[in-house]
């Protein structure tokens, strides 16, 4: 009964989403107060119904109800409780349900926040969210119902996909999806502004904290996915430019541009139509990501069970939502005028550069991701696009972005008087160059051409970001959370730059041939090979090597890489050993038996790779600080129409 109840709850949620969309959009348009008053109950009701559906599916997993197809396919009597709950999002249908639940939660949060918004505007925002929610609920019920029954019921389930039986699965998808879905809120604010045909500075201030919050979740989600692939799945790298990774990275890039563009709109009433477009694009990329992952048009290492019928549905939905909002944009955006001007050296210019460069970066990633599909559709042959394309093209837009960042944060609004901060910029740059070159030529010895450049830019961002806050703090002035958050997030970015530069430039890879008792030196570490011994596994037999690693005589650790022979498949798989030492990741893999007791051992040393993930965390903390700034909480507008273009924000 419970699964049917869940299914029914989902259908009710669909109806409530339809009501939410209708009342939210038609109510303000036709000025029906009663309709507007019905929007919030519809949001709440929908959230309750979706939560009920999720609870029913979790109950089916916990209670081993293998008469439910999704449960039978993704769990098993021997699966621990922890993974039975997480198995909810272990495959397509449940992931969608998670998506919908997160959207419902964001909607409730917006509904609570909407009490501070003008009635009509708040209703419209929730109405647009209702449209999005309706689309995804319809998609789930029509093509991906998680409550379908098996007849006869299964005696036992198939078990969860083994690579997903990992703590990474429990946290990575919900956080990533929270970010993805969060951009729906920015999209809804943009939709509401376009429906209203008016966009003022209040709009940007209302939208900012929501966008920043979504951005924080997305940053963490992407980093967790990368971390999971590196440590748990042992894919041997942290970023592969895989279509699924790119689908989460493109909304992040556009979202970052949006966060900055909103700052200009909020403070100066500038870039209005551009901000709207970015808000549409950020969520469009989220939906496009869903399309690419689910429809099977692109094959990736993540390959979820895909189905063309689902692809066609998502494509139709994508065309309606994105096409519709872009058409609305083409109609309404010309009405928005930004009267304020600014000089070339003003902060506005730098935000504009930031936006342009980030959008170019997103476009290059987008082109690379879709190129195989386009070449396939146009019958130009199969094309494979990988790091040789992505790495250099991405750098082309990123390096100028980093250089402009350090200067831009010292620029004033409106006036381009950079002379005031010339000395600060020069001093910080000199110190950064010393540090960058020191890292490139001193600490590590064999960099590439761009190594000192990128490292210098990274250090410059840190120093340049810290000058003003430290100065204010020393003079006993308060530093607002917005400024503090911005500083922290920029330092996070710099951390990523330094980490990535170091990893890309100084990763040492060497294949050693060692006999038992033999030693070798790689990258400042001594590797002593103690020989191999046989190991028995549940479904494989293996040889396990033992390697003692020391640095200048001090012990680093004992590594036990294995080479496994799987009985069933008769395939050999190398099981690597990874340890962290002073920020460097040391990875050992056992290679071939070279005969005469000699074995080949592959050594990889990746310095500072952890910085890359740490950086995302720092950025997210910065974002959280900025989003919790006081000015977003005090911006209460009581009556309709009292706000307007006349409202000036001194800031």
């Amino acid at each position, binding site marked *: 009964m419970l699964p049917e109840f869940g299914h029914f709850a989902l259908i009710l949620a669909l109806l409530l989403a339809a009501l939410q969309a209708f009342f939210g959009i038609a109510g303000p348009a036709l000025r029906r107060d009663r309709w507007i008053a019905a929007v919030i109950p519809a949001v709440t009701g929908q959230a309750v119904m979706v939560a009920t559906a999720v609870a029913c599916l979790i109950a089916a997993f916990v209670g081993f109800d293998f008469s439910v197809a999704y449960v039978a396919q993704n769990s098993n009597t021997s699966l621990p409780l922890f993974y039975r709950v997480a198995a909810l999002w272990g495959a397509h249908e449940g992931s969608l349900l998670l998506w919908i639940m997160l959207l419902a939660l964001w909607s409730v949060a917006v509904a609570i926040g909407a009490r501070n918004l003008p009635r009509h505007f708040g209703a419209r925002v929730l109405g647009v969210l209702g449209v999005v929610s309706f689309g995804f609920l319809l998609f789930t019920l029509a093509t991906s119902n998680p409550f379908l029954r098996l007849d006869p019921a299964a005696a036992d389930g198939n078990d969860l996909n083994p690579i997903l039986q990992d703590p990474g699965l429990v946290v990575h998808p919900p956080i990533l999806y929270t970010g993805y879905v969060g951009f729906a809120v920015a999209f809804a604010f943009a939709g509401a502004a376009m429906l209203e045909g008016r966009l003022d500075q209040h709009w940007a201030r209302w939208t900012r904290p929501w966008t920043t919050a979504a951005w924080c979740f997305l940053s963490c989600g992407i980093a967790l996915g990368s971390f999971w692939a590196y440590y748990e799945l042992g894919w041997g790298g942290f970023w592969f430019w895989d279509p699924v990774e790119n689908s989460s990275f493109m909304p992040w890039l556009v979202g970052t541009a949006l966060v900055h563009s909103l700052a200009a709109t909020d403070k100066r009433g500038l870039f209005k139509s551009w901000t709207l477009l970015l808000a549409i694009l950020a969520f469009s990329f989220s939906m496009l990501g869903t399309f690419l992952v689910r429809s099977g048009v692109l094959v990736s290492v993540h390959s979820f069970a895909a189905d063309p019928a689902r692809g066609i549905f998502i*494509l139709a939905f994508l065309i309606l939502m994105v096409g519709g909002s872009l058409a609305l944009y*083409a109609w309404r955006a010309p009405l928005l005028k930004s009267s304020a001007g600014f000089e070339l050296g003003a902060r506005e210019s730098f935000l504009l550069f930031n936006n342009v460069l980030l959008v170019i970066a997103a476009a290059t990633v987008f082109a690379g991701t879709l190129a195989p599909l386009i070449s396939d559709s146009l019958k130009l042959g199969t094309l494979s696009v990988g790091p040789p394309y992505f790495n250099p093209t991405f750098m082309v837009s990123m390096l100028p972005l980093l250089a402009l960042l350090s200067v831009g944060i010292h620029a004033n609004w409106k006036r381009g008087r950079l002379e005031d901060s010339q000395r600060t910029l020069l001093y910080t740059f000199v110190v950064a160059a010393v540090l960058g070159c020191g890292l490139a030529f001193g600490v590590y010895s064999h960099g590439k051409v761009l190594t000192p450049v990128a490292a210098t830019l990274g250090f410059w961002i840190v120093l340049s970001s810290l000058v003003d806050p430290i100065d204010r703090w020393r003079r006993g002035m308060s530093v607002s959370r917005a400024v503090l958050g911005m500083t922290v997030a920029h330092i996070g970015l710099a951390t990523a730059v330094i980490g990535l530069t170091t990893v890309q430039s100084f990763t040492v890879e060497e294949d050693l041939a060692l006999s038992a008792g033999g030693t070798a030196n790689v990258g400042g570490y001594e590797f002593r090979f103690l020989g191999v011994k046989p190991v028995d596994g549940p479904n494989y037999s293996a040889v396990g090597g033992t390697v003692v690693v020391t640095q200048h005589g001090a012990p680093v650790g004992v590594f036990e890489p294995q080479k496994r022979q799987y009985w069933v498949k008769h395939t050999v798989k190398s099981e690597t050993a990874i340890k962290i030492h002073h920020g460097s990741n040391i990875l050992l893999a056992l290679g071939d038996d070279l005969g005469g007791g000699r074995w080949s051992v592959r050594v990889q040393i990746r310095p500072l790779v952890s910085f890359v993930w740490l950086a995302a965390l720092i950025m997210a903390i910065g974002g959280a600080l900025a989003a919790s700034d006081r000015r977003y909480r005090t911006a209460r507008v009581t009556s309709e129409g009292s706000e307007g273009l006349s409202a000036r924000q001194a800031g």
Partner: protein
Amino acid sequence: MNRFLLPLGVFVLLAAVLAIGIKHSPDKGIIASPLLGKPAPQFALPNLTDPAHVVRSSDLKGRWYLFNVWGTWCGECRAEHDMLLQVHQAAVVPLIGLDWKDDDAQALAWLQQLGNPYESVAADRAGRTAIDWGVYGAPETFLVNPQGVVVYKHVGALTYQTWTREILPRVSRTTPAGS
């Protein structure tokens, strides 16, 4: 021209590309399995109907076969069974079953009750062979050529359409009629 129309124009182009892409994707195989074009994973499992014997992938070399993953706990498999019996009757390509994570007695009862379309059924009690084949859910069917290479994969219940459009043309293209 209204410059605000530009994003819409770009999007229309993109949607067209995606639509063409999705039209093409079914003939690439619904999930392009990483196994496509690669040697089929090897296995040696007890024969369900004759536990004294072993079903070995190496014994299957030199001829076409359909590798069908099923289980008595799988509802779609019951729906698929009639189609499998038809495939068996057509006698074009033998069906090798993989009874996935199943109870032997239940599986035997199922075959007795519904009819046995398989030339032989390998009992994969621990589910390891299914993992080697990259099986996501039952039923799944793989077409393997005489060189032992996976040439086609079908996810879900085998349909008449897949049989006539995807499997028969591949098998008959290389096997002279009547052999």
